């Protein structure tokens, strides 16, 4: 029986998985295994969360809270704890994760390993910026703690270290105070990237969260349209303000399996931009603002058995918009427009992680159905452009970049290797070191 083995990848064989509940069980697993990788919910798109030639340890039952201080907003938990469960507990106490990715179905360990970013990167940096302490199980040293002051090099290598520096077991995190479970959201249509830029500049100092949806149907000549969303937590607890109707069209995925194709996406894009032809504001519950796609639990299956690629890159601000235009033009030429594209301007807060993806500039994430060779060819074309402009790709999303591309995008990988646990590896790591 085949199934999705990571978020974008379908495989006829399922990997052999081991799970564990307790520290002593993990200890035994690590000591009896030569090539292992600990993985969370496998929401990474490519192969950073796979170890098909070795042993995969699933952490999703290692999901206990260890400590929570509802006054100080500090939480400590086991790495397999789901962000969805963390949110339920902390939001009730008036706290929220300082940085959240676009799905809540990730584990805290996965968030560390990929040093995730969110819609508030411009004022909060990445997830790693808010971690107080980590505990790892390393094959040689046993349980090892690290943090900004203790073992800072190991700490930096582990944040965004793709789980390679040891099995992440515990995470201590500083949360962010929120006064409501709701957000005030403005959606503003734009019809060019310059307009997008103006909206970003105008919004980034005032709005905690900003992100844009690009209309894949609008990639003609130099016109790139979309919808700019900005949001902030509602000031005081005002649940009666709730106006969020939860329209299904908030999710750019409504089509059943057989229908998720080019014509359907064109219609969808038209509809979505039509719905957003005028600026509008709304109050949204945090789940529908941060995790709209989670409403469809397995939206990845809409792409069928061949799966899909997500291509996410970052390029510096200077000349960045031209790069985006160039890439969108190439996609148009291939008649292979992305089904979903999300654009965001990263801020200047430096990531702690040695291998972290975010850097100041524009980041664009695009979903492409896997059409085999033609898709790979196009993405390699993208790589050349991104490289030429000092940009890089996000390993958590990648399933195909070459070893050479990786080396040039992440020259710090050489230094990173010093911190890798010799017992740990992944399909991604084997691939980019081939």
């Amino acid at each position, binding site marked *: *029986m085949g199934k999705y083995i990571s978020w974008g990848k379908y495989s006829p064989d399922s990997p052999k998985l*081991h*799970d*564990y*509940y*307790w520290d*002593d*069980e993990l200890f035994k697993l690590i000591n009896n295994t030569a090539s292992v990788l600990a993985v969370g919910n496998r929401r990474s798109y490519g192969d950073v969360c796979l170890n098909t030639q070795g042993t995969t340890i699933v952490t999703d*039952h290692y999901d*206990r*809270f*260890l*400590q*929570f201080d509802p006054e100080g907003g500090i939480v400590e938990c086991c790495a397999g704890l789901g962000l969805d469960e963390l949110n339920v*507990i902390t939001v009730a106490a008036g706290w929220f994760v300082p940085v959240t990715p676009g799905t809540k179905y990730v584990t805290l360990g996965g968030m560390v390993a990929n040093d995730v970013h969110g819609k508030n990167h411009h004022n909060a940096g990445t997830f790693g910026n808010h971690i107080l302490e980590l505990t790892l199980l390393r094959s040689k040293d046993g349980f090892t703690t690290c943090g900004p002051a203790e073992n800072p090099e190991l700490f930096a290598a582990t944040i965004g270290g793709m789980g390679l520096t040891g099995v992440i077991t515990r995470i201590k995190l500083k949360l962010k105070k929120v006064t409501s479970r709701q957000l005030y959201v403005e959606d503003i249509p734009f019809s060019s990237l310059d307009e997008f830029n103006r909206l970003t500049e105008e919004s980034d100092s005032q709005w905690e969260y900003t992100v844009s949806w690009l209309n894949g149907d609008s990639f003609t000549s130099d016109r790139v349209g979309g919808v700019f969303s900005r949001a902030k937590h509602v000031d005081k607890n005002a649940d009666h303000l709730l106006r969020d109707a939860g329209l299904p069209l908030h999710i750019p995925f409504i089509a059943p399996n057989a229908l998720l194709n080019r014509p359907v996406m064109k219609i969808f894009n038209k509809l979505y931009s039509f719905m957003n032809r005028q600026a509008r504001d709304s109050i949204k519950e945090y789940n529908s603002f941060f995790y709209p796609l989670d409403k469809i639990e397995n939206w990845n299956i809409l792409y069928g058995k061949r799966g899909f690629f997500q291509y996410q890159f970052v390029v510096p601000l200077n000349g960045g918009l031209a790069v985006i235009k160039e890439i969108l033009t190439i996609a148009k030429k291939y008649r292979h427009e992305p089904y979903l594209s999300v654009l965001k301007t990263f801020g200047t807060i430096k990531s702690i992680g040695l291998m972290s993806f975010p850097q100041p500039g524009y980041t664009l994430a695009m979903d492409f159905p896997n059409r085999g060779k033609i898709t790979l060819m196009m993405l390699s074309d993208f790589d050349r452009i991104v490289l030429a402009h000092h940009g890089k790709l996000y390993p958590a999303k990648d399933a195909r970049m070459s070893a050479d591309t990786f080396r040039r995008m992440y020259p710090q990988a050489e230094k990173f290797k010093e911190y890798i646990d010799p017992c740990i590896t992944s399909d991604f790591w084997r691939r980019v070191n081939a």
Partner: protein
Amino acid sequence: MRESAPNVLVIGATSAIAIELLRRYAKDGAQLYLVGRDPVRLRALRDDLVIRGACNVHIGILDIATFTEHQAVIDNAVVTMAKIDITIIAHGTLTVQARAQTDQAYLLREMNVNCLGVISMLSLLANVLEQQKSGTLCAISSVAGDRGRKSNYVYGAAKAGVTVFLQGLRNRLSQSGVQVLTVKPGFVITPMTREFNKTLLWVEPSVVANDIYQAIQRNKDVLYTPWFWRWIMFIIKLIPERIFKKMNL
């Protein structure tokens, strides 16, 4: 129906199904009494349950095979919580059939834990609830106890003993207003079943825990979980022994 959050006693608290069930009760703000063998695991579980909303979590250490200590553990729980609303017996081991056929000591040890250990607890707890004239007595049996098969009849026999014992208790305690719930899970993905090849019939412990939680609320007698096992076992029980004995099950 209870007005406030219940007092819950769980024997075998660190088992996969028990953990999920305990989290469900923690969410309701219940007072919990965890009984298990390993103090380190129990303390870790307690910390987690408190953060998840449990109002009070107590720990009792017990090796289920030490029958002489059963009464003391129950007495402690009764004294600590004053009243026991729900008690769940969730401990168990999955017997390796082949080994049990050749290793008599192992066979008896397994029967001790999976059958006698459960029955002893049930019997002592039944007296408490009978006197209280309220509460729920729930034990996790198995579909394996519905019919003996060559692949797991040692485990099945232990569970069959539990099932019949519960039947009798239910009959006895119905006068006292005590619910007796027999839980018969099918295939559950737990550390106990790590080595098995999983098919579509396998479910996560959270699914089973959710079913148990609802069955307790709805005052059910027998729960097959997931639901389709009621029908699978119905058919399996219908097969005449003359044919069944030749089948490869």
